[in-house]
């Protein structure tokens, strides 16, 4: 078993959830999302983000508009759609359940 791979899989699993969480209530650019994910050490390379963003947009959970920039070409400015907010709400519930379960398991382990 490759522990680095297992860790990567764990991170990969929560990536969508993290992206949606970052965007909840704040619209931002892709580079801001990257910054948030890097600070949380959830993302290792930025390339992982772009296919995900596109997929979430195609699924109708995100939308973007083009923002003019004085220094160059326009940039994509992302925000959650109402569907996205709903989806996030469900993921929030799922996350809480997971955290509870894992904590319970870990507690039982130390009690043994």
């Amino acid at each position, binding site marked *: 078993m490759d522990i680095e791979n297992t860790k*990567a899989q764990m991170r*990969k699993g929560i990536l969508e959830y993290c992206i949606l969480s970052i965007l909840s209530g704040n619209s931002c650019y*892709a*580079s801001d999302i990257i910054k948030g994910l890097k600070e949380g050490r959830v993302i*290792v*390379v*930025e*390339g*992982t983000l*772009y*296919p*995900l*963003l*596109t*997929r979430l947009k*195609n699924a109708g959970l995100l939308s973007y508009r083009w923002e003019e920039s004085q*220094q*160059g*070409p326009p*940039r*994509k400015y992302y925000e959650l759609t109402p569907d996205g907010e709903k989806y996030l709400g469900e993921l929030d519930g799922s996350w809480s359940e997971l955290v509870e379960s894992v904590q319970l398991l870990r507690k039982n382990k130390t009690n043994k």
Partner: protein
Amino acid sequence: MKITLSINLGGYSFNIDEDAYDELRAYLRKLEQHFAGEESSSEILSDIETRIAEIFRTKLTGYRQVITMQDVNEAVSILGNPEVIGESTGPSAGEKFSTPGYHRMYRDPDNRILGGICSGMGAYWHIEPWIIRVLFFVLTIAGGLGILVYLILWVVLPEARTTAQKIEMKGDPVNIENIKESVKKEVENVRKKMNI
């Protein structure tokens, strides 16, 4: 002294060293292949290009005017190599191009005597074509049915023209590996025939 090229990356204009350009182009090509199976692949690539352009712009401060190999390598390590970017949705890269072993009957143009019907049917059922030819012959003698069936099949069955179709004819999955093998075999056959 080096030659530089002028590139348009994500709408920004950059001067880039020739060797750095080759490196960058190779990287973008790898990404293109990596995302080839994905819908919206051009959008993903365009977003990545824009990001690389942003990274490059942060490099060109002060007196710096040209993008160097070091800048490209840094951008690549930030964005990540395709292997590390990891799989998007679906099946792994190798399987992306494969059909799940469709088994279709085609006419086999490579092993035909008349219309390739018997060799095609032989390939489909994995039996020698001559068995089928005998069958047709028998059917023809016993009332002419054989000829009728043969002609109908000649019209109805498509010819296996592409390598992918030839593979499907035998019922193997069509993926990069099998196509490579088939092409190799065909080249060998031609070589043998021409005694090269």
